[in-house]
């Protein structure tokens, strides 16, 4: 069987790719996609931990379901915000969103 550490490595790599995307991408939609990638990396970890360590309770699986339902809710709200901003500025690049100074 594929050992646990391999799943964790895949999860960690996906999480890192998502993290990189959030920090490096300038398009708000791309940042949102990167965040989704991070959440899915977590789901891999959760299900792997569940399969290898606590098969007799459903906690890991249930948590994974919660993670992606919440992720969908977050996406719905986020896309609505992005659409609203796009309609006013014709741009979703985060550096164009700069009325407020850091």
């Amino acid at each position: 069987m594929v050992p646990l550490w391999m799943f964790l490595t895949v999860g960690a790599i996906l999480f890192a790719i998502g993290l990189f995307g959030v920090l490096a991408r300038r398009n708000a939609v791309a940042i949102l996609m990167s965040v989704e990638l991070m959440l899915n990396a977590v789901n891999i970890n959760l299900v792997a931990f569940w399969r290898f360590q606590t098969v007799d309770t459903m906690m890991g699986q249930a948590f994974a379901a919660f993670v992606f339902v919440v992720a969908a809710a977050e996406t719905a709200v986020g896309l609505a915000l992005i659409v609203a901003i796009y309609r006013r500025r014709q741009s979703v690049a985060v550096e164009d969103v700069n009325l407020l100074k850091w």
Partner: protein
Amino acid sequence: MIQMPTLESLNFGVAFPALSLVIGAVLLLVVDVFLPERRKGLVPWLALLGVLVSLAVSMINYNEVGEAFSGMFIADPFTSLVNIIVLISAALSILLAMDYLRRTEMEHRSDYYLLLLFTTSGMLFMGAANDLIVVFVALELLSIPLYVLSGFRRPNLKSEEAALKYFLLGAFASGFLVFGIAMIYGATGTTNLPGVWAGTAAIVESASPSLYLLLLGVGLIVVSLGFKVAAVPFHMWTPDVYEGAPTPVTAFMSVGTKAGSFAALLRILVVGLPTLILTGATSAAWANTLAILAALTMILGNFVALRQMNIKRMLAYSSIAHAGYILMAVAAAGDPAVGNQGVQAALIYLLTYAFTNLGAFAIVIALERNDGTGGQLDDFRGLASQRPVLALLMTFFMLSLTGIPLTAGFIGKWYVFLSAINAGLVLLAVIGAVTSVVAAFYYIRIIVRMYLQEGDANIGTSRLSYTLGAAILVAGLGTLIFGVLPFLVADLTQGVQIVRTIAQIAGGG
């Protein structure tokens, strides 16, 4: 394999404050869309009623202890106190919003109050979480309506921008939170906090490699909740979002989100992981990290606030600085001997800060003009001669934020410093004291402008509305009462004992 919960294990009764608010919010959602346009004015009052009912139940059942939803949810004095802090903030925030929405001609948009109720119920569940899954879902229930609320002043560009920034960074932070939770789940095999407690104790004792998973998990959770409470170096979003969001939302965010997030942080760290003590150390592994974060937060928040010329940005940096003081209490709670005292200090600080800060924001709302201007510090010039009562109250709130004796702010700082010194964090307490003196400069600067400088404070409302007046009154009374009668907070918090003892675990607690 699958155990169905029984009705007894669900134990709805103890979860009544949070449940009633959720049910109220859902019902109001339906009522709202069936109300004719001219009766929309009822919605804020119904929302206020829901909050007050929940508040009353939290107060009546203050000392009740019990678990609900098969151990996912816990009610104890800690939960009750967090409920009270959050619900008072929500009630005041509804009063502020009634005035603000009317003046900005958004009165018909009653979904504001629905979103507010949902985010409030998220905060209540944060305080009552006894399971990491609940922490995560509650955090999202708290955050998602707040993203929308920050952008509520559409089509104002600044407000939309605040919403986008808050959303992107918030979603990013919740990614860290779930990753951290997954690590803790992997290490201990459970997401239930008492289970995590037991698992951690076993891992530390046997020094198994799972220890690294735990440390990674704790680190990620601290990062993500650090974002939510605006701790340095995760504070970048705070001034922008606070400035851009509608002012009543900013007021609620600065108090409610802090209360909810700190409650979750305390639950996870103090209930779940107090035994994460590395060999040779006397306090939990996370305590040092938090102490460093607290020091950075206090220093940066207070010094940058000195340079702000916009009142909302200044209060944003001030709220960052106050998060630093609360973090100091959380760090102190890492010492097993001071655990409960640190938790109590953090809650006292949150309670006193809630009244003071909402009061300050209420006056900012009174001064704000309908187009959103009027928030510069120079707009306070000459306020004392034009509106002496408002100026007096603003002075009082500023003194309380500074931490002058006989105000609530002093009591909060007193308990926090006491717990830090008891935990041996003397250097941190000294940094806190020094930065408090720095803070006095920018708070007193406002008082100087109001009393000593000439100008025409061209304030937004010619006459205070009843709701705004009531909010200022309640906030002022709270700040005064807790300031002159400090034994009240001691009475409130003496029942807050969330550090688990070996006996409780053995007894099946």
